[in-house]
């Protein structure tokens, strides 16, 4: 099922050629595009009446080169041009309430005075640098919502020959070359995936000739190449380093390798140059199964969709097999030119994110703790005993300013345990958290194995002498432990005791991914309201003092309400 996303481009150049690249970037993601392009010279007028309600993503694509025929010449008024562009960007940020892509701008490639300064006058380069700095600060104002497509970075990575293509500039109004447009498309597509809640979360790696040079089963621990003093060993070690950077950002790391598990684990634990250790792994399938089966098993174990996986393998046949069998998985083939493995992950940047929060950085600890919990559970056998032994504690409290980034992030990307999938942005959540007739709650979970951090959020609005649940969600990391019932129980208690309300209403809004919570409200003590609505939304209600509501919190979770 395709999820149609509406993109609006406000631009001052021919940006339409970005569309085929966007489609390629989004192939297999389940996102279908509808692009709308504004006029070439009407950006200011479009921004003045901008209403982002009908679009999913707004791209403000403005360059300096396109705004003045004097650009780069001695008589170009760079300060005035930069100021106009900054004002427009500021107004767009103020008027646009959903995800927005801004861009840095490129200074003239050559100095109009042949490199000479003009006495008493700021150079065009300095004016453009100042503008880019102001644009970066503007984007940082709301990093959960605003992405900066860094044109200066693309130009640095690509160089003059691949940034510009003058063949289409004078006649068709496109100054950039195809590689620049492809690079730009990748970032816009990433913003769109984030807006759609489809970010990738797990890196699955092949081992032989991907994590190290050679074949461990044949070459042995001393024969594989992983030393930083020689090539190709140094390439593989640099690749492992990049993997650890992703791990530090909260990307789960998994292995899918056709090998003996003991051989692979020996490399991780005992090879003197191995950076990636067993402790970094969230899951592994080291066996003789086909890779698509291993990848599906890893996704299931980590409670992730296939579209959350990125797979790296050097074998073109394995890559092809996974691409065909599991289209949602992003496949990166380790290049035959082995030195290109060094920055394969950075170059392709498949793990899009607008912000990295403390919870992201802690996530890997919790994936790993989940693994330990699962092993513990297998050892104990009986699940209720396990749940008691694990000593879970759920802290429920009002969301403060420090929690907003994480709450908004959960709203953006939680798909499975999400009753309504309402993607409120930072401004909306902040307003709700300050509204006397609304309640934004968050929940932190910890147990004897570790702290999972902020894993649940709920938004409730008062309506007369009752309350309507706008949002209830839990991170997939925290599922399977009945913490959701503890959270709901804490929510009911707060509405009853602190707000002294009489009734509560809630909804289940079906989406492509949230079938697991279709019956949640019934299990949580509410009564289904009849008749059902035509749009598939199911509504529930209960008196707040109904006995069923008082007993749903499981007794094996310690509830701390603040």
């Amino acid at each position, binding site marked *: 099922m395709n999820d149609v996303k509406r993109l609006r481009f406000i631009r001052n150049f*021919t940006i*339409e*050629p970005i*569309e*085929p690249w966007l489609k390629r970037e989004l192939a297999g993601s389940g996102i279908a595009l509808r692009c709308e392009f504004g006029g070439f010279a009407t950006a200011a007028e479009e921004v003045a009446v901008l209403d982002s309600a009908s679009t999913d993503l707004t791209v403000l694509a403005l360059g300096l080169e396109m705004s003045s025929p004097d650009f780069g010449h001695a008589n170009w008024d760079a300060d005035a041009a930069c100021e106009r562009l900054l004002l427009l960007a500021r107004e767009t940020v103020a008027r646009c309430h959903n995800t927005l892509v801004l861009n840095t701008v490129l200074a003239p490639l050559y100095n109009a005075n042949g490199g000479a300064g003009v006495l008493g006058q700021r150079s065009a380069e300095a004016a453009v640098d100042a503008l880019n700095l102001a644009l970066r600060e503007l984007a940082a104002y709301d990093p959960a919502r605003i992405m900066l497509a860094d044109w200066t970075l693309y130009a640095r990575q690509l160089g003059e020959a691949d940034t510009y293509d003058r*063949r289409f500039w004078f006649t068709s109004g496109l100054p950039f070359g*195809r590689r620049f*447009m492809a690079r730009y498309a990748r970032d816009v597509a990433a913003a769109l995936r984030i807006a759609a809640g489809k970010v990738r979360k797990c890196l699955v790696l092949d081992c032989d000739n991907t994590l190290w040079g050679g074949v461990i089963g044949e070459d042995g621990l001393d024969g594989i190449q992983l030393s930083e003093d020689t090539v190709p060993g140094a390439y593989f070690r640099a690749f492992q380093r990049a993997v650890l950077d992703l791990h530090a950002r909260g990307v789960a790391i998994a292995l899918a390798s056709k090998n003996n598990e003991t051989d692979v684990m020996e490399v991780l634990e005992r090879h003197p140059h191995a950076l990636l250790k067993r402790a970094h792994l969230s899951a592994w399938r080291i066996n003789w199964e086909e890779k698509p089966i291993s990848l599906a098993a890893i996704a299931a174990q980590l409670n992730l969709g296939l579209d959350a996986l990125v797979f790296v393998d050097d074998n073109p046949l394995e890559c092809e097999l996974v691409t065909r069998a599991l289209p949602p998985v992003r496949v990166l083939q380790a290049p035959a030119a082995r030195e290109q493995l060094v920055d394969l992950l950075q170059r392709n940047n498949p793990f899009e994110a607008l912000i990295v929060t403390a919870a992201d950085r802690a996530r890997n600890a919790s994936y790993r703790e989940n693994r330990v919990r699962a092993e513990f559970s297998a050892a104990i056998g009986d699940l209720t005993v396990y749940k008691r032994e694990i000593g879970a504690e759920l802290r429920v409290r009002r969301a403060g300013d420090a929690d907003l980034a994480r709450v908004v992030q959960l709203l953006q990307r939680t798909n499975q345990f999400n009753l309504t999938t309402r993607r409120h942005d930072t401004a909306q959540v902040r307003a709700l958290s300050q509204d006397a007739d609304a309640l934004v709650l968050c929940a932190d979970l910890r147990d004897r194995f570790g702290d999972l951090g902020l894993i649940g959020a709920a938004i409730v609005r008062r309506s007369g002498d009752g309350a309507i649940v706008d949002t209830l969600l839990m991170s997939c990391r925290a599922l399977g432990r009945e913490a959701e019932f503890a959270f709901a129980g804490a929510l009911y208690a707060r509405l009853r005791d602190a707000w002294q309300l009489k009734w509560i209403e809630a909804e289940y809004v079906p989406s492509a991914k949230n079938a697991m919570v279709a019956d949640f409200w019934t299990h949580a003590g509410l009564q289904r309201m009849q008749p059902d609505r035509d749009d598939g939304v199911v509504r529930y209600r209960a008196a707040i003092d109904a006995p069923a509501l008082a007993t749903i919190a499981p007794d094996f979770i310690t509830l701390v309400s603040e």
Partner: protein
Amino acid sequence: MMNEKLRAIVAEVLELDPALITVETSVENQPKWDSLRHMNLIFAIEDGFSVRFEDDALPQLTSIAAIECALKK
């Protein structure tokens, strides 16, 4: 015989059924082949075949026959 890789690229960019594309397909007889898609098409062909067309060749590349001929040079 038409180059199949070219057929696939043209079909993707012009959003046409590959079976409808022949060497005779051109700007003249294919309304979807407008100036914007022409630019997209040139980019996609340059990408797919690792070539770069000279700017004076671009205005002539308005039919599949002409593009095939240019790719053979």
